[in-house]
């Protein structure tokens, strides 16, 4: 096949471009996630930098052809360092009118729109709410704005598979591979990786070689169609990117989260106990970890989120690395339990994969609006360490960080991921496991009081952490509980001074974590007109916007907080070096509040609540407005 693709070069010109963003869309049943994923693999294996984002429908299987049943998958592949799946779509593949309707406005002017013409009929127009008399493919305005390329994919796929010996339904299922073939031709990509996958997956795993063969046939047919049909005046080529050398794989945030925590447990020489209750968009962490039993992982699907956090605390008390995970509504339910962990001073990590709220909100959409809850959503003075990964692959590193801090400071750590990075994927330079520092844990086996008794709340002067003595250890029997404890002994105490002291000590202990938290790095000049300060999943977008702004000659730098409580020690320094601090967030200004309160800086927010990532262009524009250019 690769020779075939080579020969294709003679037909049309190939135009080199830096980056291309393609979106595949169609009905949930059209296999768009698979198609996008396969194209991504192809690009990644080729050596492009990639970033992807799937857009699932909220329904499990919405009726075919409706707009709310549309499934989308966007991938940007590039010869340069990229951080996002791209703002504007350069090429859209729309398998049906509903997909066309819901996605067309994201295509850049002049962009390519490949449609499965066969699905553009009255019946389908009705299903997605177009007027029956209106055919969008005939709309002059749209045809002026976009290069609409009509392909009768259903018919062509059927024709190519007349002798495949499969039913009509199964034949039609190969249309997505036909579309992928076209796209591979258009962007000059080999078919080998996809063929390999189809052979393996359908041929070997599912033991359906005929399905594999049909899909491969459709794929090739699409490719040849691109070559022959002269629908495209030009092909595009995106050269290899200059990534750091090493071995890569594609990884989503939820996958990296799971792998990071497994690695943390291994580095701590512990079992990982993951207690969770399914919830979008966090469930995948449970699914992934439940398959990793051989790696020292115990998973517990609890009856609810309260049970999950409490079981995790029990597991921590008993001496394993305890993790619980959820999304916003579940974090609300875990508040009381986390408060207990603050009092018990046991290590615990709580994952919150944020989604659009409040309440049930828009479960499949992203948002960053749980920060204040993570910081303060518990009764009493109940401080936790809060960290937030900034990209899919960063989830791996921050997961390890989370446990390193939890264990060292004997306290809960809240790990704020979000739907955007959880589901998005990017290339991941595989880490050298030996280079990751072990997580030191010491369970005492001897009493720590000259009189021979054990003092469960006697603190390490450096970290203020108490000893983590675990059940099963002879002679260290002790009782923990949620009532205020006497310093050292841990006995119940209602003493006023003791309470004041313990409250302050718990707070001081969390602040101590700043001792080992890396300093905040600035991208761009160390001082200037404006600093775009972000946290969490907006990293790629803010970074790209900052790069664009600097390229356009503006004095704008960017910095991204992975540690939200405590902050890196140099944060006030960094903030002081810029005239304006701009804080873009997908909420109404939560980090903004904290920064303002902490440093009395008149920082300005850029805030959107659209259930999705900022557009880079919007960030650039709003930043320029704020700095007055």
């Amino acid at each position: 096949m690769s020779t075939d693709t080579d020969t294709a070069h003679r037909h049309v010109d190939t135009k080199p471009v830096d980056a291309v963003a393609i979106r595949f869309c169609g009905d949930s049943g059209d296999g768009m996630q698979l198609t996008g994923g396969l194209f991504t693999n192809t690009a990644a294996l080729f050596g492009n930098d990639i970033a992807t984002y799937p857009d699932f429908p909220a329904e499990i299987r919405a009726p075919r052809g409706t707009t709310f049943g549309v499934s989308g998958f966007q991938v940007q592949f590039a010869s340069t360092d990229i951080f996002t799946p791209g703002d504007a779509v350069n090429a859209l593949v729309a398998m049906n009118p509903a997909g066309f309707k819901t996605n067309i406005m994201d295509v850049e002017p002049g962009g390519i729109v490949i449609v499965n013409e066969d699905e553009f009929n009255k019946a389908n127009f009705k299903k997605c709410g177009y007027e029956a008399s209106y055919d969008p493919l005939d709309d002059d305005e749209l045809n002026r704005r976009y290069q609409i390329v009509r392909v009768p994919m259903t018919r062509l796929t059927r024709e190519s598979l007349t002798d495949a010996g499969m039913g009509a339904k199964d034949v039609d299922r190969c249309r997505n591979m036909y579309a992928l073939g076209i796209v591979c031709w258009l962007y000059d990509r080999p078919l080998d990786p996809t063929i390999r996958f189809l052979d393996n997956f359908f041929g070997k795993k599912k033991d359906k070689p005929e399905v594999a063969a049909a899909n491969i046939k459709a794929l090739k047919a699409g490719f040849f169609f691109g070559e022959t049909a002269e629908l495209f005046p030009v092909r595009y080529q995106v050269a290899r990117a200059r990534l750091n050398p090493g071995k890569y794989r594609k990884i989503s945030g939820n996958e990296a989260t799971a792998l990071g925590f497994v690695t943390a447990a291994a580095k701590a020489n512990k079992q990982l106990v993951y207690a969770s209750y399914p919830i979008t968009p966090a469930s995948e962490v449970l699914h992934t970890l439940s398959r990793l039993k051989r790696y020292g992982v115990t998973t517990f699907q609890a009856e609810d989120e309260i049970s999950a956090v409490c079981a995790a605390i029990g597991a921590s008390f008993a001496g394993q690395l305890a993790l619980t995970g959820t999304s916003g509504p579940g974090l609300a339910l875990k508040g009381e339990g986390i408060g207990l962990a603050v009092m018990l001073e046991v290590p615990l990590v709580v994952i919150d994969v944020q989604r659009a709220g409040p309440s049930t909100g828009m479960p499949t959409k992203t948002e960053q609006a749980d920060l204040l809850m993570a910081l303060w959503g518990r009764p009493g003075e109940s401080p936790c360490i809060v960290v937030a990964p900034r990209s899919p692959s960063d989830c791996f590193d921050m997961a390890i960080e989370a446990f390193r801090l939890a264990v060292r400071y004997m306290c809960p750590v809240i790990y704020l991921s979000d739907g955007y990075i959880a589901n998005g994927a990017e290339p991941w330079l595989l880490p050298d496991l030996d280079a990751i520092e072990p997580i030191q844990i010491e369970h005492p086996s001897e009493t720590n009081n000259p009189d021979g008794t054990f003092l469960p709340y006697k603190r390490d002067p450096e970290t203020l952490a108490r000893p983590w003595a675990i059940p099963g250890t002879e002679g260290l029997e002790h009782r923990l509980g949620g009532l205020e404890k006497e310093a050292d002994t841990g006995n119940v105490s209602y003493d006023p001074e003791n309470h004041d002291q313990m409250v302050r000590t718990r707070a001081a202990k969390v602040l101590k974590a700043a001792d080992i938290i890396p300093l905040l790095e600035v991208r761009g000049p160390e001082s200037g007109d404006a600093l775009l300060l972000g946290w969490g999943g907006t990293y790629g977008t803010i970074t790209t916007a900052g790069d664009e702004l600097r390229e356009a000659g503006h004095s704008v730098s960017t910095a991204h907080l992975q540690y939200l409580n405590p902050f890196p020690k140099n944060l006030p320094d960094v903030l002081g070096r810029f005239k304006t601090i701009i804080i873009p967030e997908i909420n109404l200004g939560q980090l903004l509040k904290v920064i303002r309160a902490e440093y009395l800086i008149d920082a300005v927010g850029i805030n959107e609540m659209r259930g999705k990532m900022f557009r880079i262009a919007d960030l650039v524009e709003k930043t320029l407005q704020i700095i007055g250019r």
Partner: protein
Amino acid sequence: MHDTQLPTYKPKDFATDQDVRWCPGCGDYAILKAVQKTLPTLGRRKEDYVFVSGIGCAARFPYYMDTYGLHSIHGRAPAFATGIKLANPALDVWLVSGDGDLLSIGGNHTMHTMRRNVDINILLLNNRIYGLTKGQYSPTSEFGKKTKSTPVGSPDYPVNPLSWAIGGGCTFVARSIDIDVLHLEKVMARAAAHRGTSFVEVYQDCNIYNHQTWFYASQKKTRPDSTIQLEPGKPMIFGADSDKGLQMDGTRLKVVELGNGVSESDLLLHDETDRGLAFMLTQLSFPEFPEPLGIIYASTEQETYDHVVHEQIRQAIEMDGKGDLHKLLHEGETWVVEDD
């Protein structure tokens, strides 16, 4: 960490130096004593016991047991206990809490722990009232009961903890009484021996807010006629003069008087493994019926949750070997970017 030989413990080895803060006359004292007397007989090391509780008067229990202990939050003790067993199945976990804690706010966790058959022992200290919060009605309070929050009487029908446990799939269900330390010890020893969740309801007197609620069943004079002692395989006989018993009457249990042609051998024999019978027994209530004491149901047919979970891990490792983290990270399609 362990010497190989098990030390010989005395009850006082399980007592802490903390002042016991229950009210004078509280039934919890006797139960504490019974537990402290039972543990030395069970052949486990002190450091392997964990006492877990929620919140309430009963839930202060762990502070008085010189073992590992967790006085957690209201209603969630079963979840903590489950987590402890997941982390270390070798620990011997006892959950002691009140009727409000385990049945009201904590009912769901209790139920799910029971159906999963997590290998822990639950002691429900049932005083039919909220003691710690000073006297509101609890889910076991009688319909019509006047309390601080129900000045004209409770509008709720109470839950029957044992029927509910049987219905929820618990594999070991028993009942005892605070003042009868010997009976308590016997029942607890059986509960401890049971693999899976054992659920023991203990009738407990709250001396302050619900005094004498169980006196019909606890006092020498009335007890023989108001309760029935169950013994596996033994006829169901009761009464001050052992002159009454239980029989099946179609689909229902009935009380019969012995004599007049009815002899002990005509009575129903107790079968701990008969879940339907167990349900009917838990439904018996005084004064129409004697209330059963002892082991009502005990089934060993199910595996314990912690066993199954750890067995799945063991098998996974046995089949495919211990996981190699490096391989895991390098799974799937990978590609190499060379140094330029």
